[in-house]
């Protein structure tokens, strides 16, 4: 029963791993992967000298950290708020609505965002104008574009992110709350002294897990939200790999960047795992 599965992994995952060798080769379309001549680390040294490459790394980190900085605390706050809701129906409807954006494609999100944030006709700038402000270039100014990117990401994933915390919150021992209630603790005190410590280990694990992903970034969001004007901040590692690999057909260069990224990712992952274990949490691998 396992045979088709193994076959799938060999063909679509392990054979491409062999293809990584072209990062060390001077790839020639006519000669193919195996017969192209070796060139050692030539490709890497070329890439490391390229300004665009370091730019892409910087942008990846900036966008990831900006998103994490906003979404991480916000997700926890929303989970705590949802946990306090007494009315079951209200809770279920709110959750359904909050999860919904997770299932929408980035093409649609980008389409909606362009419509909402547009300079000339967007609803948001229309509101700003009506309040006497001047329109904000959400999609074309570097700083504002990062803002828009973070807003779209947070909007899309915040509800989905609460699932794991809500699961942890249902595990908190009820009797602790009752004891605190009898001792006269206010709602806020119960939150600080019971709820947060109870889910602390989930919070820490999630944070470590998220930080370990800082070098990888989805391709769809920056590619679709980006445009020529904001290329300096929107070009991230994945879009850069795509642009030089598929659009410019520089296969060796693109593969080398991918490999560099994979290796860094694995290093971060091991460090994060060690760190998690060192502070007494479960490992993440």
């Amino acid at each position, binding site marked *: 029963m396992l045979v*088709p599965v193994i076959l799938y992994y060999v063909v679509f995952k392990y054979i491409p791993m062999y293809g990584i060798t072209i990062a060390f080769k001077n790839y020639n379309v006519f000669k193919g992967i195996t017969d192209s001549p070796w060139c050692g680390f030539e490709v890497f040294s070329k890439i490391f000298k390229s300004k665009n490459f370091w730019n892409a790394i910087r942008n990846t980190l900036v966008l990831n950290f900006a998103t994490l900085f906003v979404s991480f605390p916000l997700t926890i706050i929303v989970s705590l708020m949802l946990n306090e809701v007494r009315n079951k129906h209200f809770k279920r409807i709110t959750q359904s609505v909050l999860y919904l*954006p997770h299932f929408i494609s980035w093409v649609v999100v980008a*389409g909606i965002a362009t419509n909402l944030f547009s300079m000339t006709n967007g609803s948001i700038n229309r509101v700003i104008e009506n309040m006497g402000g001047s329109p904000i270039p959400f999609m074309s100014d570097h700083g504002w574009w990062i803002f828009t990117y973070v807003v779209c990401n947070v909007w899309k994933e915040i509800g989905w992110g609460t699932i794991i915390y809500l699961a942890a919150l249902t595990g908190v021992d009820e009797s602790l*709350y009752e004891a605190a209630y009898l001792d006269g603790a206010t709602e806020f005190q119960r939150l600080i002294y019971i709820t947060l410590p109870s889910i602390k280990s989930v919070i820490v694990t999630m944070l470590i897990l998220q930080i370990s992903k800082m070098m990888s970034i989805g391709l769809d969001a920056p590619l679709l939200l980006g445009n020529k004007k904001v290329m300096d901040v929107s070009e991230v590692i994945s879009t850069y790999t795509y642009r030089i690999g598929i659009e410019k057909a520089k296969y060796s260069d*693109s593969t080398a960047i991918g490999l560099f990224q994979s290796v860094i990712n694995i290093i971060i992952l091991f460090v994060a795992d060690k760190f998690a274990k060192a502070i007494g949490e479960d490992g993440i691998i």
Partner: protein
Amino acid sequence: MKTKKLTAGLIVNDLLLAVLAFICIYPFLNVLAYSVSGYNAVLSGRVTFYPIDFNIDAYRQILGKTQIWMAMKNTVIITVAGTALSLVLTILASFSLSRKDLPGRSFFTAFILFTMYFSGGMIPTFLTVKSLGLFDTVFALFVPQSINVFNFIVMRTFFKNIPESLEEAARIDGASYMKVLNKIILPLSVPIIATMGLFYAVGYWNTYFDALIYIQKPELYTLQLRLRSLLFGEELNNSNANAEGIGTQVMSQSLKMATVAVSTIPILIVYPWLQKYFVKGVMVGSVKG
């Protein structure tokens, strides 16, 4: 705790959540409102979340385009075939690797998990798919990505939690592994299969990047790819589009938003039905297996 009465703090809490939910749903309402509003109302930017001068011209125009129907057809094919293939492979992998008596179990599990942390990357995968002759065929859009490692882990955890005694009884009565899977495991696994089915189906429905790199023939365009070229105006130089008389003029906002709605509504329709399953499914996955 459960009997606690509604305090002012809790009311504020509920109100804030209602506002947040509204922010989450507002863009969808905005899209729908745009798509059914009159030309002048849209142009003057008065449309917010309810229609002004209600009309369905935009939908009539969109649904009259063969391009949209073709893209819809491709997307449906990919979603149905892809979800079926993904589910079969994921079930086979999870079932065999959840059995304790499989020789080499930990090796094969590691073999699969390794791909989660390390992969060939975009170009080597692209070259492999190309050399298999899948380039510019619909197969490129679901065969190479048919198993998701995370979904595999979730499903395997679920299978592991099914009491072994059930299976042992059937084995003693002479049932084969296939029969055990069909008659015992699968009927007990409806929630998890529904969840994984939803995840895979949404993934295929929303697939954009694979279509971007593997598909060149316009008649194989998926909905997302078509949507993107309509929204961001790459269609302008396309002679096919001119022939249909919509290429040269920039699409009106109503038309764009109607396209967005058409490509999103199928998800919104299945979502409430499957929603009761997926939270459970995700929870199972959060228990590390």
